Structures are given as C-alpha cells and as structure tokens.
C-alpha cells in the first residue's frame, strides 16, 4: 500500500513543480476536451495543427524582443495565431478546392519563420523550449495565465455553444437564420488559438496540438454523442497528463513527449476496443 502511495502520490507531495504541472495539465485538459472534440467533429484536425504552428512566429518574435517574458511570448502567439485563423477562413471562403495547399503553406512558413526568429536571438536550447515546451518549469505566473486562458475559452465556448455546433454540421442553416456563420467559424478558431497558446507553455508549438486532439480522438471511439465525448475527452486528457508526468518523473523522460505518447497509447487502446466492440463506435440507432 505504501509502495503504491510512493509511486502515485509521493512525487506530487514532495515536489512543488510536479503539483504545479499537474494543476496546469488539469486546466488544459478541461479546455482541450470540449474544444478538441468539436475540432474533430468539424473535421478540422489539420487546421488545429496549422494553428499550433501559427502560434510559433509570434511567440518567437516575443522571445526575440523580450527574452523569456511570459506576456511577450503569449501575446505574440495569440496575435499570429489569430492572424492565420483569419487568413485561413478567408482562404476557405475563396477557393475551397485549394484549402489543404494553403494550410500546408501556412504551416511551413510559420515553422520556418519561428525557427529563424528564435535562433536570431537565442540558442538551440531556447529553440527546444519553444518547440517542445517545459511543463516542469511552469511557475506560478505561467500557471495563472494557463488557467486564465483555458477558463476564458471554456466560458466563451459555453456562451456560443449552440451556434458553433450548428455551424459545424449545417452552416447554411445558421447563415440563413442569423447571417453569422462566418463569424462563428472565426470565434471557434479564436478559441482554438487561445487554447493552443495556453498549451504551448507546457508542450511547445510542435506538441500543443497533441493533448488537444489525441484525447478527443480516443473519446470518439467510445461515444458518438457530443457532450459525453467532451467530458470523456477531458478525463482522458487528465489521465494522460497524470500518467505521463509520473513516467517522466521515474524514467527521467522529457515530460511533454511522455504525456503525448501516453495520450497516443490511450487512443490506440480505444481504437482497438472500438474495433472489437463495434457497437461502441456506432451512432445510436444505426442498425448493425
């Protein structure tokens, strides 16, 4: 019993940085659950990936200007993330058939510009920090910022939940009803950006989209209903964060990749479960 205690609780009781990391991951998981689920159900996982890279040049610019200033990194990330979100929705409106090409271009340009900006001022270690994050180095100000950003995005999502969900499967209907379907698409992308900026403190721009999409993808294997999928996705995200932190503590692994790998393992297990229990994955009411 005390052995189990030593494995599961001791690391968090003994070290403040483990506790801070766990609280930060919990805040992220609560926002990632609903937002990641909607992102998947809208078939926009590629857009999520692109937006997470779009955070990088802004964060890098903030770094080049002000060094490791929390505010500069985050504000820069929000600005370029929102800019690319706006550009990408302009592009989808203009030429739907070329959408994936445009997204790939945004992705590559963001990554290249970000790497150039970071290395112009900092070292390779700084670059690794921006790309992969440092969840164990998260301090109290960063934790507060993560909690603030995730809370804001969850509250906004709750307020505009109905139009965002309707826009996901019947944009024409929303447009005919209230004329705001483009607006709501942008609002949703802005929520994704806020969430990614919160996650980038912990996971870096390369991995921030992992905790957003992987738990949501795993949850979708177990249920097709929107709200249960969101709740389950938040739970799985939290579980992945907890187990990943413990793995990185005992095996001395980098924490971000460890958490993303655990989330990936959860997805694989869920996928197999859905394959061998096909009624799990079927929408309610679909005949076999």
């Amino acid at each position: 019993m005390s052995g189990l205690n030593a494995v599961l609780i001791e690391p968090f009781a003994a070290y403040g940085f483990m506790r801070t990391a766990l609280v930060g991951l919990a805040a992220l998981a609560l926002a990632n659950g609903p937002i990641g689920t909607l992102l998947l159900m809208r078939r926009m996982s590629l857009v999520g990936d692109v937006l997470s890279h779009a955070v990088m040049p802004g964060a890098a610019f903030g770094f080049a200007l002000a060094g490791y200033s929390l505010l500069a990194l985050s504000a820069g990330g929000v600005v370029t993330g929102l800019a690319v979100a706006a550009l990408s929705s302009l592009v989808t409106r203009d030429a739907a058939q070329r959408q994936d090409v445009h997204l790939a271009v945004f992705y590559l340009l963001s990554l290249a510009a970000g790497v150039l900006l970071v290395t112009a001022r900092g070292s390779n270690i700084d670059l690794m920090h921006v790309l992969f994050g440092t969840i164990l180095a998260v301090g109290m100000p960063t934790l507060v910022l993560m909690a603030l950003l995730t809370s804001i995005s969850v509250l906004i999502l709750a307020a505009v939940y109905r139009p965002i969900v309707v826009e996901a499967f019947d944009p024409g209907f929303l447009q005919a009803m209230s004329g705001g379907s483009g607006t709501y698409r942008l609002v949703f992308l802005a929520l994704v950006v806020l969430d990614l900026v919160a996650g980038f403190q912990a996971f870096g721009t390369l991995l921030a989209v992992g905790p957003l999409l992987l738990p949501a993808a795993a949850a979708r294997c177990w249920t097709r209903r929107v709200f249960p999928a969101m709740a389950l996705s938040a739970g799985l995200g939290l579980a992945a964060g907890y187990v990943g932190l413990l793995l990185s503590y005992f095996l001395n692994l980098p924490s971000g990749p460890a958490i993303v790998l655990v989330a990936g393992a959860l997805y694989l297990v869920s996928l197999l479960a859905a394959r061998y229990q096909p009624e799990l994955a079927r929408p309610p009411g679909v005949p076999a």
Partner: protein
Amino acid sequence: MASPENRAAASGGYAEAAWALTLRRLGAAARQGASAFLRRFDGGYAPATSASVVAPAVAIADLTVAYQRAAALDGVSADFPPGSMTAIVGPNGAGKSTLLKAIAGILRPRAGSILLEGGGPGDIAYLPQSDEVDRGFPVSVGDFVALGCWRQYGAFRAAPAAVAGKVRQALDAVGLGAADDTAIAALSVGQFRRALFARLMLQQGGVLLLDEPFAAIDASTTQALLQLVKGWHDEGRTIVAVLHDLDQVARDFPRTLLLSRRVIADGPTLDVLRVENLARAGFDTAAVAAT
C-alpha cells in the same frame, strides 16, 4: 433648523441617490451593450414574426451572383407573387440552387436586389439539398428538427417548453414519429429528407424555398412529401422549388421559371416548357421530347 443628524441623513440620502443613478446608468449601458451584442451575434432571434403566417411576394431585379470570377446568375429578374407555386427548371449549372441560396440570404449577391414584399427575412424557410448537411455529426433527429424553431430561441436562449411538442407533431406529420432519438447519420436518404421537411415545417415560413425536394427518393416518399407541399400551397404560402422531373413540374406546379444563368422563360408552366425554350436553356431536346 437642521440638526446634525438631519443633515447627515440628508447627505446620506443624496449620496444614495447618486449611487443609484450611477448604477442605473451602468445598468442601462450594460443592457444596451447586451442588446447590441445580441443583434450582432443572434440576428435569427425573432419570436414575434413567426407567430402569424403571411405570404410575402418575392421580387428579384437584375440579380447577379458570382463564385469568385464566374457568374452563376447574370442579371436575373423574376417575380414570385404571394401564394404562388413556382418550379425552377434548368440544366446542371444553371444557377438554380444559387438563386434559392441568394433569396435565403446564404449567398451575397454581387449586384441587383431581392425584395420581400409584405414580410421580413424571418418569413423565409429554406430546404437545402441533403448533402449540404454533414450527416456524420452526432445529432439526434429530434434535436435536428427542433432547429426549425430557431427564431423562437435564437443562439443563446433556452428552448421554450412548447418546442418538444411541436417537434413531435412535425415528426408525426412527415411519418418519422418514432425516430426522435435516432442519430441523423442512421436515417436513409428518404428519411433524412423527411426530417428536413419536418424542420422546414417548424420554421412557419411564408416563403418556402425547396432545393430539389424530391431528388433521389422513392415514389411513395415523393408522394407523401408532395402532399405536404400542396397543403402548404393551399394554406397560401409562397412556394419556390428547384426540380428536375419535368413531368412532375407540368402536373403539379402552376408556374415555372426556366433558368440558364439568365432567365430563359417565366410564366405559366405549359407556356414555359415548350421545346424551343428548353433548347434555348441548353437541354438535350431530343431526350426531352421522348419523355
């Protein structure tokens, strides 16, 4: 005469009044801000307009709609009188769906005007083609049909209790009575069209825009849905439907608009569906003559 207590009470009262005034101003500003926000983000909330059924006329003048550079409609003018029942006919790519979407407010015209005489935007109800809805999204038939009452609750308010009963009635009317909890992904093509009709019915529109309402469904479903449309026509609603089956148009639709990016012919169906008109619209007239 004022004692110190009196003066204190008076000034306290004054201070309270100032506070109350400030609070009231703040409250008014907040209410103004909230209603501006609702106008911007919830233009669909209009509970009053949906109560009465009026049949507005739709007057289209010189309408041009373009996707990027290619014009889908070029200088189209047409009138749909109140209570009329019009079929829109034309070859593929003639801009039939584009015309309906422009009237429904989904596409913005590049030029020209669409006037709704005797009604507001809330009077328009639009039945999309089935593939405009992502049916992989996990939403139940009941929730989907309840969207027809959108104008009564809009983007942010809770749905009124009466909505559940209305949804049940509409589902019964289209023959989907037992499908309330089924996912829309589980419906057949015909059943999903019935669900779209149920949602349309709840919108209580004076102008009904139907985009290929009978495409890819079997004869009995077509008959059932056609009876609904005729019933709406008898109630005096204005009906505009994009159709492909020219026999059905000749049989059931008094007016026809023949479209091929421009208006080829417009008027009573038998005058419009002449072979020379169809040929000018770009139909293969040999095939048409054979049917």
